[in-house]
């Protein structure tokens, strides 16, 4: 089995596995005052500190959630009140669904948001802007710091969905200038079931909860925290090496770039057209269109050959249709003919070889039929 669907979920890192197991051995509830509770509390707060530090935030400004979707929803719920919403055209459904009726910020053919249009939209009154750091389908990295400067100048707030970027490129909430930033554990090699919202210090104390409860997370998110998943989240953050300023640099997740490039080049030889490849991208992602061949047909053929890729976001992959991301990029018919290849942190050259064998075989059969 060759797993190249890391943007759907990453395999668990061994450090995260160890942390999950150790946390499952702890008995207490972090809110309890007795010895077992205090031990659980200590692990919760150490995890909070480790994650916050990795993203340049204060521990007090980190709210644990059940995952990236809840973090996005909490940000829009808490920061969007009384503000107009401006949302990037290629945002994840978690953001799109939370921002119905929002003004849409268009993107160019590479998937990069139009900042001139943002400047214009920001003139229309107090806004919350949602702009993802890296796209889940194409890996395109948005000019978030530049957008943040525009937002700041206009008195707008900026929420950044960094779910796909975290663990793969350097993410620092302060230098990005984001007012809030959503994270997901399982997209960076941690377990499913934990995420976080980082909030700018000036806003974090007053965050209105989406889930009301027993006062956990300083009243910002009710419910007993998912301690094992959170401990695994912290360990995965510490293990993920993104000590690089950008995805072109060497080392860390950027080491995946040569493997990704090899997959992309090899697929091009079989007739694939990479989409969004001329923009700054995540080092692990390529979006490959095969003209004339439906995306779901490609995914099924690759699956039968033991290669796991996807036709878009996993959450919607049960209902394969056109990609709103590729449509927004003006990909035309190719929007229904592209597969996402996303390398996990543990990808090897052998994985790329297996992918290319399957891809060439698939393209040979299906492209000919399409032609």
């Amino acid at each position, binding site marked *: 089995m060759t797993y190249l669907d890391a943007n759907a979920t990453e395999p668990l890192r061994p450090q995260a596995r160890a942390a999950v197991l150790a946390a499952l051995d702890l008995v207490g509830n972090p*809110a309890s005052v*007795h010895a077992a*509770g205090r031990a659980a509390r200590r692990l919760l707060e150490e995890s909070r500190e480790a994650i916050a530090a990795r993203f340049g935030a204060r521990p007090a400004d980190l709210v644990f959630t059940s995952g990236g979707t809840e973090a996005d*929803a909490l940000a829009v719920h808490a920061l969007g009140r009384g503000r107009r919403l401006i949302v990037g055209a290629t945002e994840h459904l978690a953001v799109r669904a939370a921002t119905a009726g929002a003004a849409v910020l268009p993107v160019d053919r590479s998937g990069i948001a139009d900042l001139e249009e943002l400047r214009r939209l920001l003139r229309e009154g107090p806004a919350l802007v949602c702009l993802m750091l890296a796209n889940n389908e194409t890996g395109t990295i948005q000019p978030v710091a530049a957008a943040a400067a525009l937002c700041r100048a206009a008195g707008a707030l900026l929420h950044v969905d960094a779910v796909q970027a975290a663990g793969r490129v350097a993410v620092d909430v302060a230098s990005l200038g984001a007012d809030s930033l959503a994270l997901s554990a399982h997209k960076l090699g941690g377990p499913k079931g934990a995420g976080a919202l980082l909030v700018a210090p000036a806003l974090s104390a007053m965050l209105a909860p989406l889930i009301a409860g027993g006062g956990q997370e300083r009243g910002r998110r*009710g419910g*007993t*925290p*998912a301690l094992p998943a959170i401990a695994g989240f912290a360990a995965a953050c510490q293990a993920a090496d993104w000590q690089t300023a950008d995805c072109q640099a060497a080392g860390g997740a950027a080491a995946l770039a040569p493997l990704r490039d090899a997959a992309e080049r090899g697929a091009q030889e079989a007739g694939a057209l990479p989409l969004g490849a001329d923009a700054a991208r995540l080092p692990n992602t390529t979006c490959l269109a095969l003209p004339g061949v439906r995306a779901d047909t490609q995914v099924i053929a690759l699956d039968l050959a033991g290669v796991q890729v996807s*036709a878009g976001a996993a*959450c919607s992959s049960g209902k394969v249709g056109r990609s709103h991301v590729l449509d927004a990029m003006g990909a035309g018919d190719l929007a229904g003919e592209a597969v996402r290849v996303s390398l996990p942190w543990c990808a090897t050259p052998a994985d790329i070889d297996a992918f290319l064998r399957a891809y060439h075989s698939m393209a040979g059969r299906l492209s000919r039929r399409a032609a």
Partner: protein
Amino acid sequence: MTPRPPHPVYLDNQSTTPCDPRVLAAMLPWFTERFANPHSVEHAMGREAEAAVEQARAQVAAVIGAEPRELVFTSGATESNNIAIKGAARHVAAGNPRRRVVTVATEHKCVLESVADLRAEGFEPVVLPVRPDGTLDPAVLRAALAVPTLLVSVMAVNNETGVVQDLTALAALARQAGALFHTDAAQGFGKIPLDVVAMGIDLMSVSGHKIYGPKGIGALYVRRRPRVRLAPLFSGGGQERGLRSGTLATPLIVGLGEAARLAQAEMASEAARLALLRDRFLVRLEALVPGLVVNGSRSARIPGNLNLTFPAATAADLMAAAPVLCVSTGSACSSAALEPSYVLRALGLSDAQAARSLRIGIGRFTSPADIDFAAAALAEAHAKLAHATIEA
């Protein structure tokens, strides 16, 4: 002097429970080699994860007599309660005359807060009192239902006192009045027999970590026939039929499923064992601490819980004097605050009595030796503190 055990004695199983090794074993492969996203149904690894999620859904449903598709996975009972209460209210059209949402003074904070939050959205929260034994008088609910009511939310088992509400009778009253009936069953699921059909329940919240499963997972039962409609708390990828978006946490869900299966299979034998331990504890402690009071109904209660008011020492002092015991003053979420329990106040206890009350939660991994040690240690601490009070 009672010999000190090598490890803390954990008697706070209403706060959270240790993860059962069998649950851990069931979860492990889904953390590691079988890690795929259960929504990636386009490929084999994703379908395998999806199948595991669906098996767990069936396991949870079986415990309460529901159909698997009536279960929605959430991050825990708090989220389930939020979705049930706010979701039911927000779904009704603005023109609907039913604006009343009824709950009970002894509910978990997250239920009380969810109901209270609805006031700002034009609903009418009503919080009913309980009888001194902690049970809700059906006549009190009936009176509240004289005003057209949207939803009634009554917990199955109280988290501080262990008192069991008569859900069948209460749900029948709600149904007759045309109101939906929700129950927070975080403390009852897998511990007492619950059947959503026989009991007439429309919505039920359950939690994993209260039944020896992992933290971070729960479920909400949503009746299909007749269908209960809810607005989601938040949206996104549209998972769980749009009611709860976000990638499903496969390993945690598998853990919840296995924990539910074990709880169901062992419910009767475990209840009998816990009742024996509870009685043993109480007999010993009552013999050593005259004037000890058991709070809440003696009959309508789960076997694993005791809420005790001590005659001459505060709970905080008892806990400090016996730090090897992991017991609590009440709900974990608010226990750090050390305010008198609002649950005990609702049963008619004074602030001073509530401050002298401890919750003892006996669980699957409590041994008779733990019980004997705990009874002796508490009695010893109490005697010392009572003596010090008299001296002073």
